[in-house]
């Protein structure tokens, strides 16, 4: 079976400072991949190189057989419509309603004029409503997003990604700003989405226990290099302390095998 996403020898440096070094990674359709590592290890850069929100310095990214780094502007936009993205700080427009923010996920499919005027079809609006019901936000549909709790904002972010009908969702620390209860709700939704709709998920996390609990596969990054790539079951304390540096293992991986 071919891969949905293939990353070959990807490197990125910011003005000579390396952020990613020779990263290679293949992701199968429907996989739930957690990328773990310390802050500044390069997780966020890796995620953003996939949809070219950050321009890689060298290497190759293939998504559904397209050479992403070779695409022109229009073709890149078309690839981006098939890749949803969820952010740590939600990145919603605070003064707009929940419904408007969700439908923003459809703007990539429209011509500039239809997009400018916000001309959404009835079926798009119906889909937005269904997604809000699915995520337990039907009571908030008219509410402005700056009035929502963090967990609710992130669910709006998920709905905005899902309305794209994406093949892949990139999640950049989606629970880093949430309390444990809301974080669990978000992780449960993401896991359910992967299981029910076969959408592939690549998620940056810094909590190893959450990654081990939810992901099919874990990729550990340290200083821009992949140091671990495999099943959560095989992840041991030694590997984790290697990824995170010494002394942090007790706090991070209380439940893992020696």
């Amino acid at each position, binding site marked *: 079976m071919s891969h949905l996403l293939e990353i070959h020898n990807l490197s990125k440096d910011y003005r000579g400072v390396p952020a990613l070094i020779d990263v290679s990674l293949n992701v199968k359709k429907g996989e739930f991949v957690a990328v773990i590592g310390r802050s500044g290890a390069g997780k966020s850069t890796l995620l953003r190189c996939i949809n070219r929100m950050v321009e890689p310095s060298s290497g190759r990214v293939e998504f559904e057989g397209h050479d992403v780094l070779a695409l022109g502007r229009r073709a890149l*936009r078309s690839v981006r419509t098939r890749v949803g993205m969820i952010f740590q700080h939600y990145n919603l427009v605070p003064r*707009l309603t929940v419904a408007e923010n969700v439908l*923003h996920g459809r703007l990539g499919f429209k011509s500039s004029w239809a997009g*400018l005027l916000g001309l959404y079809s009835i079926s798009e609006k119906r889909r937005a409503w269904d997604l809000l019901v699915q995520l337990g936000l039907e009571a908030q549909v008219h509410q402005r997003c700056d009035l929502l709790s963090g967990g609710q904002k992130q669910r709006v972010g998920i709905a905005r990604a899902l309305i794209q009908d994406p093949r892949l969702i*990139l999640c950049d620390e989606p629970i880093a700003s949430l309390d444990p209860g809301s974080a669990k709700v978000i992780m449960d939704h993401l896991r359910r989405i992967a299981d029910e709709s076969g959408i592939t998920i690549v998620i940056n996390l810094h909590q190893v226990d959450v990654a081990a609990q939810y992901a099919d596969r874990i990729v550990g990054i340290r200083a821009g290099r992949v140091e671990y790539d495999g099943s959560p079951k095989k992840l041991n304390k030694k590997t984790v302390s290697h990824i995170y540096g010494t002394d942090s293992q007790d706090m991070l991986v209380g439940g893992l095998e020696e």
Partner: protein
Amino acid sequence: MTGVGAVHKIYRQRQLWGGVGLVLVVIVTVGSALIAQFDLVEGFAAFPKALVWMGTNFVPDARAWANLPKILLRLGETVVVSVMATTAAAAVSFVLAILGSRTTRFHPGATVVIRALASLGRNIPVVAWAMIFLLAFGQTFLTGFLALFIESLGFLTRSYLETIDETASGPVEALRAAGTPWAPVVVHAVVPSVLPSLASWMLFMLETNIRSATLVGLLTGTGIGFLFDLYYKSLNYPSAALTTLAIVVVVLALEAASTLLRKVIL
């Protein structure tokens, strides 16, 4: 150093620098007074005398009140010119800021050019602009309008650029990541995120402009500034006083109105 000593040292250093700062302020004040051959004591001693003079001469009398309709007409002209200059500048600044913002990424060249233009407009004082346009257009409303317009354009473009970069980058990133073309990103992510702050900056600019317009009018011989100059130079102090009073009342009323408006939109 450890323990209490380390904490103590922080405060000792802060007190030391506070003392140095105070001494510097005194040196600069006294030094500049010496250079300007200005006697500080005499200057402050003249203050009560100035107040007494104002209390006796700078008071509107019956003759001055008869001039009120003329004063209000001229003041109205000044307010209208200020409003025109501010709103026109706000509209142009909005377009420039969207084209020049690092967040919207219209063009890197546009960013450099627009930032440079904004600095030029902002860092040359409004009075200097008025003198420059005075040479070109003479003593007309156009001169005052253009001086206020250019100054506001510089200030507002700069403020709008910063507002966009500070508040819209998150939503812009999200919409771009979803494959949204440039124009809809601006309309759906940038505009709703920044509009209230932009309106608030515009109201602030309007208040400033009505105050500056008085000064500009003195130079360009238009509006309330001209009338004040006329009364003052013809030694008609009561009417000059009434003019000043009218300006103060209008500026205060506008400030109150824009504070209220700002509360509603933010």
